[in-house]
């Protein structure tokens, strides 16, 4: 049982399926066009697996020219398009619909140019996030945004969702690292925006494209900023009796003028679940835990950690674990990085993504626990504390439709609390279909109408990823 509505598929398009596939095969070689039902199944969902729709067809273009030709054809035929990176979206951003063709960028997987003097790399958009860093790490550089799915997710998907990651407290999110894109519009027009220089001229269309959720076009290439890796980095682990103390410690660290590279929070249940899986040596007798990482030379790290530890002591820290070696550091991170996977071993879960102001974190956490308990479910909290981006993992049984409904309802109520506290529905996962119908929690119709008018400049016929982001009711004519 699913609760989020899809627009009814257009029967006229479905009836023309064979013709449309033939049209695509006239543009692309057969290995780039997926039309059999079995193979299309692989594209019916993304990481929001509770929802599935079999696409009309899937195409995997090899170049910007291919993408342009495909979009020109589909636009002329009035066929909807669902762009897809690696299909790791947690908000259903890449879930297709029966009357739409999926355009995947997975064959656009080359790094085109690395320019260390100017600190940029030009990449095809289907390159994986980690693929960018892997290509330059040997020379001491990295690409900063680091979503948890970075092994699989693509630069195209990161641009679509303006992805973040654990280290964006210091380095910022995707939009702060994209200097240029090659964008194919729905009618096949290719537009280059920005480049290897700062600040694209004219209106900041680049800023609009990052986070567009596949609504404005298909990005085939990007120029990204690359950064030099710090001399060293080291995490420290703090255990507190309560989430309140951990939250106050986070605020106090920032209040002291220190911006660590990362500050990650885990609550008691999250600690228990990950410890059972990862054996990272996490303290089981605490109510909340922080992992704080700082960068620099050894002496600089020592100085910063000393100051941070003194702040933590003011907030009654109970457990302090310094890492004395690279292995210990890796162990501290191992638990955090496997938290989602470890939770997935014991239950199905939905991962929420609201952001709350730091000052309201303790309140929002308390309300989260109460809301989920009210539905008779359990929740583990693992999130980026430095920026208030929360990830409550609401556990439920996917084979129990009533329980799924409860989990979704609890998630919606948590997001409402985030918005009411001054935060937002989504910090880094995107709206997708998951939060589409909640947009009026955060925006009024006038706000959304303005966004939709901007959207219509790029795609007046709503052919691009049309089931997403904007509530189906109240869409501008």
């Amino acid at each position, binding site marked *: 049982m699913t609760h989020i509505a899809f627009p009814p598929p257009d029967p006229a398009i479905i009836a023309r399926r064979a013709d449309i596939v033939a049209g695509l095969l006239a543009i692309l070689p057969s290995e780039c066009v997926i039309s059999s039902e079995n193979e299309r199944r692989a594209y019916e969902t993304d990481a929001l697996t509770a929802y599935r729709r079999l696409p009309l067809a899937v195409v995997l273009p090899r170049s910007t020219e291919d993408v342009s030709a495909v979009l020109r054809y589909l636009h002329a035929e009035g066929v909807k398009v669902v762009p897809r990176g690696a299909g790791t979206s947690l908000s259903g951003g890449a879930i297709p619909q029966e009357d739409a063709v999926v355009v995947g960028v997975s064959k656009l997987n080359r790094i085109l140019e690395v320019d260390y003097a100017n*600190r940029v790399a030009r990449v095809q958009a289907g390159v994986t996030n980690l693929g960018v860093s892997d290509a330059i790490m040997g020379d001491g550089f990295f690409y900063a945004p680091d979503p948890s799915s970075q092994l699989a997710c693509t630069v195209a998907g990161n641009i679509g969702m303006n992805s973040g990651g654990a280290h964006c407290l210091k380095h910022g999110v995707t939009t702060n690292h994209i200097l240029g894109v090659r964008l194919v519009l729905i009618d096949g027009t290719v*537009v280059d925006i920005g480049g290897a220089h*700062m600040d694209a*001229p004219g*209106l900041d269309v680049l800023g609009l494209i990052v986070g567009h959720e596949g609504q404005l076009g298909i990005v085939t290439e990007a120029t990204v900023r690359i950064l030099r890796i710090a001399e060293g980095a080291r995490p420290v682990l703090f255990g507190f009796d309560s989430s309140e103390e951990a939250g106050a410690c986070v605020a106090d660290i920032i209040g002291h003028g220190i911006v660590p590279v990362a500050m990650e929070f885990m609550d008691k249940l999250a600690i228990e679940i990950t410890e059972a899986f990862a054996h990272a040596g996490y303290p089981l007798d605490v109510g909340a835990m922080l992992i704080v990482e700082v960068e620099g030379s050894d002496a600089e790290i020592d100085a910063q950690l000393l100051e941070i530890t003194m702040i933590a002591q003011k907030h009654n820290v109970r457990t302090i674990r310094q890492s004395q070696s690279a292995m210990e550091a890796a162990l501290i991170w191992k638990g955090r990085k496997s938290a989602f996977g470890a939770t997935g071993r014991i239950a199905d879960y939905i991962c929420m993504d609201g952001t709350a102001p730091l000052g309201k974190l303790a309140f929002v956490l308390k309300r989260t626990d109460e809301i989920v308990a009210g539905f008779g479910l359990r929740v583990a909290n693992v999130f980026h504390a430095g920026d208030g981006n929360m990830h409550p993992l609401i556990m439920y049984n996917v084979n129990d439709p009533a329980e799924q409904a409860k989990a979704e309802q609890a998630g919606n109520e948590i997001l409402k609390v985030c918005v009411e506290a001054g935060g937002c529905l989504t910090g880094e996962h995107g709206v997708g279909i998951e939060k589409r119908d909640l947009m009026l929690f955060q925006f009024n119709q006038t706000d*959304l109408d303005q966004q939709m008018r901007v959207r219509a400049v790029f795609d007046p016929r709503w052919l691009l990823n049309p089931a997403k982001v904007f509530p189906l009711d109240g869409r501008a004519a």
Partner: protein
Amino acid sequence: MLFSPASEGECAEIIEDCRRTGQTLDIQGGNTRAGLGRTAPADAILSTQNLTGVTLYEPAEMVFSARAGTPLRDIEAMLAEKNQILPFEPMDFRTLFGAAGEPTIGGVAATNSSGPRRIMSGAARDHLIGLRLVNGRGEIVKSGGRVMKNVTGLDLVKLNCGAFGTLGFLTEVTFKLLPAPRDSGALVFEGLDDASAIACLCAAMGSPFEVSGAAHLPLGVGEGRAQTVLRIEHFPASVNYRLDRLAHALASYGKPAHMDHAATTKLFADIRDCAPLAEPRERAIWKLSVAPTKGPEVIRTIAKSTEASWFYDWSGGLIWLAVPAQGDCSASGVRAAIAASGGHATLMRAPDAARAEIPVFQPLSAPLMKLTAGIKSSFDPDGVLNVGRMYAGI
């Protein structure tokens, strides 16, 4: 005619009236950057002068919101009390224009104005996380918010940052902040030519020492010999450590002098405000954004056909260029050089007559121009707000 609304609702009424009666509005904050952009005469002025005041400041969250007309000076004073800063070092245009007013925070947002630290910490557009505006339809629209991680809906915040008020009249802006560096210092290499200087700056930016300012003042622009300057901002012990390591790593460029905190602060304020080229005022000023290593070649090409002075910021990627304000103010030469190198050029200071004739902002490709016109129309369909300030008719 001057409108000075004191509330957002009043702004909406004024703009709606103007739309109905076919009047156009010229948006004004502190009037310190009126010389920036195309000349765009309008029927009346819409001022933010009565829309002032900080509406939220949470030091522990590194965020504040303020009404658009709030003087930048007030905000910087408020942040200084809590040892925080606007990370992108907004430029003060008074040095360039000799204007008398007070820059406002709305003006900073509307012009996406960033200084030397942009190379490390990002631009104004990277720190503006929320805004409220009244569009040309007289509607109050909000985008973004007050939390630094927010991907909800299309990013109309960035779209309006640097839109010069052509899409909406900003009423309130929210920026994220950083702690003020506890100390700073700089290395100064002397006597390098442009090409070696840019290579030195790029090598420094590619080091792990987080250089937050990287500028080159050629012979005759700064004081004495050519100066190639690298700034580090950090804890005191780190500043010393990093400057030493950097000097060692860059030894092939010479033995640099060390600059203390006060001198570093003064020099980078001058670089931020384009002070080295501000006089004589008769000269036209261009701002070029290119990939850093392209800078020297771009300058060589331009200087072949005109008398020119220049200096580099942003590791060489930002070129401030002064040329005689005659004819097209070297527009054809500048734009031809940019066409070859990639990047863009903005005419930052020129007589009104020239700004009416010469494209002040980089001309856009046809598809991008079409999108730009469409976006303008989606916010301001009847052309009420700052029409023509960026591009003719937009």
